[in-house]
């Protein structure tokens, strides 16, 4: 991830003693900040942990050079990603972009005057799905249950989903990931940067509707994996998959199954799921609170 930082910032990070770097936050005219296993901290010009007043202040040159490196001097190549607010780098690392929005006909066209970048280390947690894989798929993959992972943001839904996809695919099933925001497989130039299994096809950047059409027409999936359902339009997509006999593994924002069922879109959308996994951060991200067998959304 460091090679995408301006040389001056790269030099500082190389001197720093960090315990499992998670984030690098670059904000114009403000102190250089990192996050590691110990939490957030500022770095001085020689890589020492420091207070904000003595920390290295990020210059415009640092920011512009970093943007050049991240975009490979080719802003046009990342239009779609920039509209989504972040880029994916080789290795599955992600760069969030902060700046001034430019709208055209009511749609975000691009971001100009970039003032901050947030680098997040991409990391797959292999084995995250070990506690539930036995309930989601039988050994050998002869039976798979359509599964919904539910939690508030930041509880490890996508991490669990990715590992489930990997393990289900490795059981011998054909898996298609519809990766709307490149968060599951973290594709770079179309190639998954994180392990999503040996029998997995990734539809990167596809909307759910068109992704499902393409998957069903061309890729013959037994299981479709997708992130963050929760809109009225998803009901049609999910029922199309159910009609085709394809199992679905998906995530959804929420804190409990009861609350989720009460939502307006839930009645039509949730009927296809047979298993619901509730996550929390109670004992750290990825804490499995409960695994519920459900049928017909009840």
């Amino acid at each position, binding site marked *: 991830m460091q090679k995408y930082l301006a040389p001056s910032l790269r030099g500082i990070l190389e001197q720093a003693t960090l315990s499992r770097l998670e984030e690098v936050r670059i904000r114009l005219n403000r102190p250089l900040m990192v996050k590691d296993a110990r939490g957030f901290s500022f770095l001085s010009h020689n890589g020492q942990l420091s207070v904000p007043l003595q920390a290295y202040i990020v210059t415009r040159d640092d920011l512009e050079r970093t943007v*050049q490196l991240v975009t*490979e001097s080719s802003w046009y190549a990342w239009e779609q990603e920039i509209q989504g607010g972040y880029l994916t780098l080789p290795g599955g690392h992600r760069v969030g972009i902060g700046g001034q929005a430019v709208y055209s006909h009511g749609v975000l066209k691009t971001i100009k005057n970039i003032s901050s970048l947030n680098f997040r280390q991409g990391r797959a947690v292999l084995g995250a799905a070990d506690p539930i894989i036995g309930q989601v798929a039988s050994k050998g993959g002869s039976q798979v249950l359509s599964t919904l992972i539910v939690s508030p943001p930041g509880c490890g839904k996508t991490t669990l989903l990715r590992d489930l996809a990997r393990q289900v695919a490795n059981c011998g099933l054909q898996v298609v990931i519809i990766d709307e925001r490149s968060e599951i497989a973290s594709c770079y130039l179309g190639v998954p940067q994180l392990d999503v299994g040996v029998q997995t096809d990734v539809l990167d950047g596809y909307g759910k509707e068109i992704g499902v059409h393409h998957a069903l027409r061309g890729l013959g999936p037994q299981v479709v994996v997708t992130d963050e359902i929760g809109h009225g339009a998803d009901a049609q997509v999910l029922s199309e998959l159910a009609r085709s006999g394809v199992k679905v593994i998906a995530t959804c924002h929420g804190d409990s199954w009861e609350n989720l069922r009460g939502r307006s879109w839930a009645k039509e959308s949730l009927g296809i799921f047979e298993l619901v996994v509730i996550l929390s951060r109670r004992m750290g991200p990825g804490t499995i609170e409960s695994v519920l067998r459900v049928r017909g959304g009840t």
Partner: protein
Amino acid sequence: MKGVAAGLILFSTGAMGLTIARSFSHQVHSLRQLMTFVQVLESEIRFARTTLPHVLAHQATQFSGAIGMFLSIVSTGLKAGHGEPFIVVWEAGLDSLASNGVPGSTLEDLRGLGDVLGTSDVTEQIKHLNVLLHRLEQTLKRSEEERDKQTRLWQYLGFSSGLLLCLLLL
């Protein structure tokens, strides 16, 4: 002895004339190669959103001579990982083109492209490339006319000045 000297004079002046005449053809060849490169770049951006380091590195292997060297210099500069503004790397490549007989007006046009290449969305990039293509077409037309006129003139001048020298000296 006189015959050998006359032969040498004729050979030297003739070769000079041919070399100057050939420089006009080189210019036309370089302009055609540049146009091909810009067309490839336009379609790579329009249809594949290929990044500049990838397009330039690949195209550097497709062209020989001045254009190949220019693309190779820019591609290497981009891969160096210093994050310099694109125009800085592009300028370094243009220096090599300048010493290879590409017309000054074309160098200015390319410098203008370097200021904007990679800095905006696909639609804008295509507009810039189309403007450059149009200008290159005009320059190529002028260069072809110039070549047709000058090639014969310099070939004729080379040999006829040799003959004149022979008559005067021998």
